[in-house]
């Protein structure tokens, strides 16, 4: 190869490399426009509260155990959340204007939940399970926001995420979203199933985000939809997350009523499978849902084969 051809090849490579970098940069751009035109909606605080419990929001957004003076019943954030990617310190969800959601508009909130983009136009890491939350109805998101805004303000600034090359990785989330968020919303009810089943499917998959742990992920950390809720390795690195399929045929529970009691009462009624691995705290949150919603979740789960 002549020197001239060599330098031409090098230039072409550099050019295509630069073009690829630009393409990646553009392809990973956070969507900053409005999520959609928000409907006129009078918030239902009771529904917002139910969604807050269905999502066990408090579990991840709790204050750190060592933090003195912070009410553990309020989602002021900051407790470490360990993942294979790094350690996150979830945000303060109370309406404090400086450190919480006090200055967030409805659009900011909907965009964060439905698209995983912050009010400052940055990607959230999908440890924040917007891949599930994006299936929530916009009215439900507004109810949830209204409930959070009704909580007492707590001034507490969580630490920044401890992730290697955080800024670059955060931008890379934009590329991940192109595959991780395929098969998008809305949640489509199944008319062949009961109202309770459909309510349960919605609660379990959208706000409840069960699949974030109970559905195994592929090498790109994208949930494998063919094995939806079929269990897999524990995201914290040790042990397994059990399958939610075939709960009755495998004799885990007698029927939907039995599973609903387990979700409501857990070990208080002698059900010992719902503690450990983080599920204990989730069951405590779920126990605060109306009994009909727990039965709905149970109706849906026992139908999974």
């Amino acid at each position, binding site marked *: 190869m002549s020197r001239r051809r060599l330098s031409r090849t090098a230039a072409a490579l550099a050019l295509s490399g630069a073009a690829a970098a630009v393409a990646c940069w553009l392809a990973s751009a956070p969507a900053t426009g409005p999520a959609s035109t928000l409907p006129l909606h009078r918030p239902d605080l009771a529904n917002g509260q139910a969604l807050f419990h269905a999502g066990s929001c408090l579990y991840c957004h709790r204050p750190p155990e060592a933090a003195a003076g912070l009410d553990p019943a309020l989602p002021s954030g900051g407790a470490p959340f360990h993942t294979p990617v790094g350690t996150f310190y979830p945000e303060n969800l109370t309406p404090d204007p400086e450190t919480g959601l006090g200055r967030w508009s409805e659009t900011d909130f909907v965009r964060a939940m439905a698209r995983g983009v912050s009010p400052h136009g940055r990607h959230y890491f999908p440890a924040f399970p917007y891949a599930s939350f994006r299936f929530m109805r916009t009215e439900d998101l507004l109810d949830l926001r209204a409930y959070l805004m009704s909580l007492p303000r707590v001034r507490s600034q969580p630490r920044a995420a401890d992730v290697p090359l955080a800024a670059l990785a955060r931008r890379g989330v934009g590329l991940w979203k192109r595959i991780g968020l395929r098969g998008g919303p809305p949640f489509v009810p199944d008319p062949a199933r009961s109202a309770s089943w459909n309510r349960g499917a919605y609660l379990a998959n959208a706000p409840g985000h069960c699949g974030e742990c109970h559905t195994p992920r592929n090498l790109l950390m994208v949930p494998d939809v063919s094995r939806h809720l079929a269990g897999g390795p*524990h995201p914290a690195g*040790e*042990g*397994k*997350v*059990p399958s939610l399929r075939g709960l009755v045929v495998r004799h885990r529970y*007698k029927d939907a009523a*039995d599973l609903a*009691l387990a979700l409501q*009462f*857990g*070990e*208080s*009624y*002698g*059900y*010992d499978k719902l*503690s*450990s*691995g983080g599920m*204990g*705290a989730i069951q405590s949150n779920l126990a605060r849902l109306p009994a009909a919603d727990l039965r709905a979740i149970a109706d849906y789960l026992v139908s999974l084969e």
Partner: protein
Amino acid sequence: MQMRSLGLFALAATLGAASVALTADDPAAARHEAMEHVGDAMKTLGAMARGQAPFAAATVKQNATTIADRLGEAASLFPAGSATGTSRAKPEIWANKADFDKIMADGKAAATALAAVTDEAAYRPALGALGQNCKACHDKYRAPEK
């Protein structure tokens, strides 16, 4: 005939000694065994709370006593460094041993109180108090299934 029963006795004695030796050397296996008994008793008691079996004070007393005894036994079977084999004991147990021991003692006390319950109205709250100790410990100190 006599020789045969003597042989059986010797065999049984050997097996018994072997299992004692095994559990003495293996606290993880010994406490697992104790907890299996607690779990079985809890299942019987749970069925009664769920309305899957009728309330029976004698059954409550028997099973709650089993739980109190076995929890007392298990509490002494957590020496440092015994998270071996298939054990789901988390290292946090030994980092917070005083807290762990307190939950175990509270659990035993709750089981003892439950054993004294004779009327159905007091049953669910008493079982719930015991269950909350089981849960408090499992949430914090038991790893997910392997």
